[in-house]
């Protein structure tokens, strides 16, 4: 995966929607900065159970143009609330197997408290505004995950 997808902004670093396996090392390199003392990495993964049923795999679908725009907005909102030095956000699409990473967020701050809080805010906000949908597959069927109505301005 190439992380050459940097937006021309001094603050916002990486936003990417990709059908490829997320490269965590590259993501962390993307937020490398000697002014930071704390990096928090959140990984969302495909879990083998949901609502008491065994899940066998998961499909992720996005509205690509809008999802990238909204991921950028997640970063901007996060940067507006915490003194974040670097932030990178990648969401996977397509067919994922159990244990695979569906979303990765790395936040680098001078201090750990800000990094933890900012990363938590970023993943929560992503779930509220980024147009992505997932479908769970079970041994005996499949179902779209019951989502949330997006929080709109």
């Amino acid at each position, binding site marked *: 995966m190439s992380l050459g997808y940097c937006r021309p902004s001094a603050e916002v670093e990486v936003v990417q929607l990709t059908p490829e396996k997320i490269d965590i090392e590259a993501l962390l390199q993307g937020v490398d900065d000697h002014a930071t003392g704390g990096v928090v990495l959140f990984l*969302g993964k495909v879990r083998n159970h949901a609502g008491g049923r065994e899940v066998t795999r998961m499909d*992720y*679908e*996005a*509205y690509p*143009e*809008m*999802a990238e*725009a909204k991921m950028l907005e997640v970063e901007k909102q996060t940067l507006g609330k915490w003194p974040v030095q670097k932030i990178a956000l990648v*969401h996977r699409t397509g067919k994922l197997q159990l244990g695979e990473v*569906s*979303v990765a967020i790395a936040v680098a701050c001078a201090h750990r408290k800000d990094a933890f809080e900012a990363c938590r805010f970023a*993943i929560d906000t*992503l*779930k*509220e*505004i*980024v*147009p*992505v*949908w*997932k*479908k769970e597959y079970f041994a005996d069927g499949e179902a*779209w*995950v*019951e*989502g*949330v*109505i*997006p929080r*709109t*301005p």
Partner: protein
Amino acid sequence: MKITLKFFGQLRELTKCDETEIQVKEDTMVEDLIWVLGERFPNIREHLKVVSFSIDNEYAGKGTVLQDGNVVGLLPPISGG
């Protein structure tokens, strides 16, 4: 005037349609599409109660007036992450 509709997730599956162009009258609002879509795709009527709309990649309120050439996304409740 003409607008493009884009369907996602369960709505895409149920309508068997990724994208379609439709003609709408001047001054049509986003909420008017709910009726139009329900007529054309009766099997998504229930889902239209919780659908969100986007216009040109930004969420749009139901009272927004559509413009010629708008790309309108039909967004089921989201479940990313």
